[in-house]
């Protein structure tokens, strides 16, 4: 797990400096169905391929950002601050 992840603020660092925050998912609206909430809370896509995900620079600048990572190779394609 020592692959390199480019924090938008601090640059490339070892993945160990960060905390993984899960897949990027959109949160259901109040009033959405039980199934929508169930999927959001309990299930993951667990993509074998490029995945959008959250990372927190725990041992660094302590900011959240998103990344596109290929989960098969741990190649991080891009990182950015969400709008």
């Amino acid at each position, binding site marked *: 797990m020592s692959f*390199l992840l480019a924090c938008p603020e601090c640059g490339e660092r*070892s993945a160990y400096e960060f905390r993984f925050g899960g897949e990027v998912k959109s949160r259901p609206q*109040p009033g959405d169905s*039980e199934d929508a909430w169930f999927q959001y809370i309990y299930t993951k896509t667990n993509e074998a391929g490029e995945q959008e995900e959250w990372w*927190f620079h725990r041992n660094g600048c302590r900011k*959240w*950002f998103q990344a596109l990572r290929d989960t098969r190779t741990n190649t991080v394609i891009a990182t950015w601050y969400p709008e």
Partner: protein
Amino acid sequence: MDIRFNGKAIPIQEGDTVASALYRAGQRIFTRSFKYHRPRGLLCCSGHCPNCLMNVDGIPNVRTCITPARGGMAVKHQNARPSLDFDYLAIAQQFDWMMPVGWYYKNFTNPRLWHLAESQIRKVAGLGDPPPPDAPEAVYEHAHMQAGVAVIGGGEAGLNAAREAASQGERVVVVDDQPRTTLGDSSYTLLSRSYCFGLYEGNLLGVLQSEPHSGVRERLVHIRAKRIVVATGAYEAPLTFKNNDLPGIMLSTAVWRLIHRHGIQPGTSAVIISNETGDSAIAAELRNVGIAVVATVPPSDVLEATGSKHVTGLRTRRGNFACDLVVMCGHRIPDAGLLSQAGAKLEWSAEAGAFVPTELPPNITAVGDVTHALVRAASTLVSMPNKRTFVCFCNDVTSQDICDSIAEGFDHIELLKRYTTTTMGPCQGRMCQLQAIGICARETGREIQETGVTTSRPPNPGVTLGALGGARHHPIRRTPMHYQHEELGAVWMDMGDWKRPRYYKSAQTERESILREYNAVRQAVGVIDVSTLGKLSLKGRDTGKLLDKVYTNRFSDLKPGRVRYAVLCDEAGIILDDGTISRKDEDDFFITTTTGNLEFMEQWLEWWLAGAGWDVQTSNLTSALAAVNLAGPKARDVLSALTNCGLSNAEFPYMACRNAEVAGVPALLMRIGFVGETGWEIHYPAESGEHLWSALMDAGRPFGICPFGVEAQRLLRLEKRHVIVGVDTDALTSPYEAGMAWVVKHDKDDFIGKFALGKLASAPAQQSLVGFTMNANEIPEDGAAILVNGALAGRVTSARYSPAVEKAIGLAWVPAGAAAEGAQIEIRVAGAPVRATVTQRVFYDPDGARLRM
């Protein structure tokens, strides 16, 4: 200059390794093998095989053939009792029929039989012994390097690559296992006495350096390199024939090193096993030092070696030769483990007789012998199954074992490895993998390429746990008043990295000390250091909106100057944390969290803000502020001596907050009551920590002020039936089960957990958090089992003796059916069930009058 071997003095010469010095002094048996305790002698002299492992200066499993000898070293043998020459466990060979390959799986299908055998097997298993507990501790450290190019291997190919990269302006590091410390040129950094044990993602290299400087045994160097050049060369592996493991049967590399590096003559008459006809280079070497070369024989003609504790001859199809040295010109194997770890493929080259690396990932190159290793033509890999033909020297796996395993169905190379444990010993496959693959291919009728190799994994070679741990400095967090607590007799406890006073030693026993603290808070005044609480400042127009969203109750309607208890849940409705929220001003909030959850809370709040575009600025003030809780009927008396702030009930009611100076220090005061007495929580700059604590202790002296610790606080709050998140709740607790329905404000449009909490509100409870009382003689431990009809049905979360009700009290999780007021439950105390009574009433001052004095 001497070293000591089993107490006996052994002279050493310049350049000696421990093994060469012992060999020169006549030692021929260096260890006994793992399973059969067969005598083993020097084989590789390169640190690749398990034959020379001994205990050096208390450290087990030292590869003596590559360890420089130093005067005063104390060397002891391993794995043989009473001696290497006579080891009574060698009798194991007579029982080889009882220990075929996979014999654990075959014999111990009965668990009772296994338990009987296990204790005996443990006594004889393993090689070296760990140092005794009172052995002097060694010092280890870590270091980090960044390089443009890292070259692994300081041989000719490696150094050429290093110089070339350096000449192009790169920052170059070379990792080499030899002890040289001087370089021809300084264009690159040399890590000497170092080996690279692993290549990890992102071109991270793990390197182990021995004795980087005096006083430090090993240094673990993490190297991040943009480019890596692997120049690890090739090593030689043994041939297989019956009794190929006898002392005196050596690889040509070992013979060459003993002669050239150590001036040793490793025998008087030798047989060379080699595919080269005529006078080979090694034959010339032997003759030059006076060793008679009796014969040179191709591997396919060798039948068996003879001898019991040392080789005495070699039987071949060309005749039987008496000898005291057999030189194996073995397979040359590219040392490509690091390349495999990087993701390169290994392809079988019949021409080279070896697996060579291909498809190297970008930024990794290989130079030198590791790329092809074609030094001599391959010898055959055929070996007839035999119970004394050793393939794996580390674990005593014979060619018979391998053939039997394949016949039993373990015919995939990865299964074969795991079933026989071939390649799983100290050499990690260096001596044995190729032979095992060859046998597997032949027995299954496959090509070698199809049979394939097993996965190479780091660390290889092995690394000590000490080196992985590094310097013994685990971080400690101290509050600003740490040393004042020390002077007051604090007995410390750990809370994560924090040190907190559990209690202050003021009486003969712990119990008496804690009771004294308790009484001070209930009857006079006490002060506790709560600096470890998480403290977050949130400012901005959208702060109220954020808090309403993230917490279960409402904060946008909290008036400036007021404090509210706060609970938050996750989307599944599980309690994450609790704390207080004070509104200092319209757009200025101050949050406290539990000590253990601050890290999480900061991340959680920031996550909800990320990309939301809301006007909220957060600031983690945990380390910037110290905090104390001053509580007791005399708290007002003490505090009024130090501040001009109005403290009366009219000016400063319960659950209000004010900014004020205390002892000249700007502070935030909150009137809250975790322990159930009138009191204030005071937050102030950490650099004034000692000053304000001293001022409180001085002002409090006439009123009998007493510092109190975590234990007393736990008891005080338990009497008020206050829940501690993470102690009384766990990862499945919702506010409804914990009796906190009132914190969930369903009339908010949206908040984290609203959907799940909506469902939980109407779902029937499965279990409930209840209070209980019981006889003061039996106080259950935190976590004690609750029994209903004799069956495990719940657990105690907190229990203490309560001076207020003179009984044992506590909180517990019980099934919903057993949660009625007055219900009887049974709690297991010291192994026996004891009756307790459920109560939902607050144990002390249920009306809260003491809070509002």
